[in-house]
């Protein structure tokens, strides 16, 4: 029902998409994969009307058409479930559902909220939600919001003439495994109502859900694979254009760490409303993974260790020193504890500052005398770390917003490495990175581990946890439910999922 013929798009001299031929039929779930920068998001934006194609034809149900704006695309039955969730927290559920189309409920210039609430209940039923449509979405859980996203897109059914084409842009990136399963069930159930285009970094999920998979590389569709024939390694090689080692989380690279007294010992610590009675030990050279669903309290544990949350009960002992209390991030940094937050763009890097400034941002006094900075020293340090972590940047003076996500992540790691942090906490360090960049991050984690740094890791996937961690702690509803020692036993994703749920 949606078909692209020879669609191209250029941004100045850069060819973003070249001669894309692509179609999706009703009842079909089509996967779209590609490395970052392969043109996925450009393609999606063209489908969704945010960009216009330079050449080529777009057909809906065989009729030629064009999408002048997202609004226009929506009226023609194109819906999009966004990667970063697109619900507006201060609006009610129903307002979110019908955002941009309130006109349908207008009576004498005023919105008839009763009618809207009724319509909302009908839409929510489609995704199996029974919830008060007057509620603000800020109060909902992640997975509830994801379902409402979907309901919002499905609400287009009544609005467009034909059937729906629904774009799912990384819908699982913020969901836990069980929620992903739920979502996939729902999508499968809905398949007779719409065609789906499923875009994800997680190849296994794409293979699991899609009927066909398109592989995009450098703005071109390089392959189209049916599900039956889909093999991860094959698709990956198409994506990167070379055979790569799919076992990038190989266990053999993981060296056992030398036994030592713990660097960090969390003892029965609780933060009200976030987690309760968590205990864990982290040793020098150890990679300790925290696994759990979204909202299980993993992130809060990291933040508590970093002094951002106050502990209500229990205690955290750093470096075996019972008298060392860390009550602020500042104290954490001064005591060689580093933290790479999940929201790279908001909390990780300073986008409008250059690489050198980012690297030294947590150790300024070391590069200053009488409060004045020694820039030569600063640049020297930056150059050294750019080399050590092979950060791809024109120079140390380049602003960070001009680097790719992976290189930005390296800059953040360089920041903590260069201060000599002994404990480094990583929250989803590979989130949103393409395969090549992920590999870099993995090797850095291993390198840090062998350098004797204690790493507390919240992994992006189970495979990462299994592949990187020496120990895995499973957290559920703010409590420790299971511990795995990966050196002693072979852990499978199944073990982790069954512990989590």
């Amino acid at each position, binding site marked *: 029902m949606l078909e692209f013929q020879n669609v191209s798009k250029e941004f100045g001299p850069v060819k973003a998409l070249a001669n894309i031929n692509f179609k999706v039929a009703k009842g079909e779930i089509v996967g779209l994969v590609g490395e970052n920068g392969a043109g996925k998001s450009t393609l999606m934006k063209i489908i969704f009307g945010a960009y216009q194609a330079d050449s080529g034809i777009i057909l809906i149900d065989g009729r030629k058409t064009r999408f002048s704006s997202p609004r226009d695309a929506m009226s023609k039955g194109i819906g999009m479930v966004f990667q970063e969730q697109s619900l507006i927290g201060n609006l009610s559920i129903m307002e979110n559902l019908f955002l941009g189309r309130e006109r349908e409920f207008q009576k004498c210039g005023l919105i008839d909220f009763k009618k809207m609430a009724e319509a909302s209940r009908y839409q929510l039923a489609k995704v199996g939600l029974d919830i008060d449509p007057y509620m603000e979405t800020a109060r909902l859980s992640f997975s509830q919001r994801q379902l409402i996203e979907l309901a919002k897109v499905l609400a287009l059914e009544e609005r467009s003439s034909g059937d729906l084409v629904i774009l799912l842009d990384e819908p699982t990136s913020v969901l836990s495994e069980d929620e992903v399963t739920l979502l996939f069930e729902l999508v499968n159930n809905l398949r007779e109502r719409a065609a789906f285009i499923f875009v994800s970094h997680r190849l296994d999920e794409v293979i699991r859900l899609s009927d066909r998979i398109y592989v995009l590389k450098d703005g071109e569709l390089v392959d189209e694979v049916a599900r039956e024939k889909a093999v991860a390694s094959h698709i990956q090689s198409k994506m990167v254009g070379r055979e790569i080692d799919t076992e990038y989380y190989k266990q053999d690279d993981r060296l056992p760490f030398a036994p030592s007294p713990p660097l960090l010992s969390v003892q029965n610590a609780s933060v009200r409303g976030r987690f309760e009675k968590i205990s864990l030990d982290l040793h020098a050279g150890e990679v300790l993974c925290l696994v759990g669903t979204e909202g299980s309290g993993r992130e809060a544990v990291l933040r508590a260790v970093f002094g951002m949350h106050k502990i209500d009960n229990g205690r955290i002992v750093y470096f075996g020193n019972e008298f060392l209390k860390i009550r602020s991030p*500042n104290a954490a940094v001064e005591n060689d504890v580093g933290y790479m937050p999940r929201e790279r763009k908001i909390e990780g890097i*300073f986008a409008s*500052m250059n690489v050198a400034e980012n690297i030294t941002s947590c150790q300024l006094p070391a590069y200053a005398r009488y409060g*004045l900075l020694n820039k030569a020293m600063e640049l020297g340090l930056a150059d050294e770390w750019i080399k050590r972590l092979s950060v791809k940047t024109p120079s140390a003076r380049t602003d960070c917003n001009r680097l790719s996500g992976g290189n930005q992540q390296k800059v953040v790691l360089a920041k903590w490495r260069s201060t000599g942090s002994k404990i480094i906490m990583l929250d989803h360090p590979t989130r949103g990175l393409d395969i090549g960049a992920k590999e870099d991050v993995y090797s850095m984690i291993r390198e840090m581990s062998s350098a004797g740094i204690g790493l507390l890791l919240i992994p992006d996937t189970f495979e990462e946890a299994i592949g990187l961690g020496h120990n895995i702690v499973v957290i559920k509803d703010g409590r420790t439910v299971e511990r795995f020692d990966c050196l002693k036993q072979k852990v499978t994703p199944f073990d982790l999922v069954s512990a989590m749920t």
Partner: protein
Amino acid sequence: MRDILKSNYHWVTLFVLVILVGLVDSNFWNVKSLLILIGDIVPLFIMALGLTFAIYIGGIDLSAQSMANMITVIASLYLASLGLWIVPMCFLVGAALGGLSGLITTRFLVPSFISTLAIGGVCYSLAQWLSGNRALYMDSEIRDALFGWMLSSTGIVPNTIFVGAAVFAGALLIERRSTLGRRLKAVGSAELAAVASGMRVSRIKVMAFALSGGLAALAGVIFAIKLSGGAPSIANGFLLPAIVAVLVGGTPLTGGVGGVVNTLVGTMIVAVIRSSMLYLEVEATHQQMVFGIVLIIAIVFTIDRSKLSIVK
């Protein structure tokens, strides 16, 4: 090349203005009169420098004008007893009150728009109380002995320019070379990242407002010395031009971009626009409107909008 041009739009705007005005009346290009023009804008410039720090971290300081008002009163009252110490003392008073606004903002999460406005009200009341609601004047002998040099010229260069340059150098040093400046930049460009890098963000923000207050006070002192007196409303008319100077220079209110060099250019743009009314012989009743329109055009040219994701 385009990038270079883009990040220097404020310079281009300034030069275009200077050239345009000079084409109409070549007297404008007289070096001596330009120097005098610059010399006179120094108090406003110093206040704008202070505001730059507040705006740089994404806040605003609306107390600057009342602060300067109050300081003219304090300077006039205590010049005789404190002598040269009047300068650091006024700076400290300003920094303390500015810091207080910052503290209210960071501690109680009152937007700086409101907290500084309110502290400005307090300053105005203090100024009225201290002055007994009268214009005060300094003992001219003491003023001439201590600060007479500031009002004369070296060659054709008014000495106030050196004062302005010194303060500017200090501000530039803080912005570019000091840890404080770097931290301000960090807080301005990504406050949460600054927290996650272990910076004491609240303290840094308080410092920004303290700097703003201190520099506003310094502007007040220089203004008082220049006028040889003070009054609770004498610095009125400073605030909006100072904010405009910062903005026209290309430091947007979103923080993290721009800086004191931009403010230097912005202040000169304001000075040129203002005196261009005279050189272009804009009719009296038109002046304010023309100022507004030229301002819009200047802002259109100076803001590098590529760095703003959403324009609010």
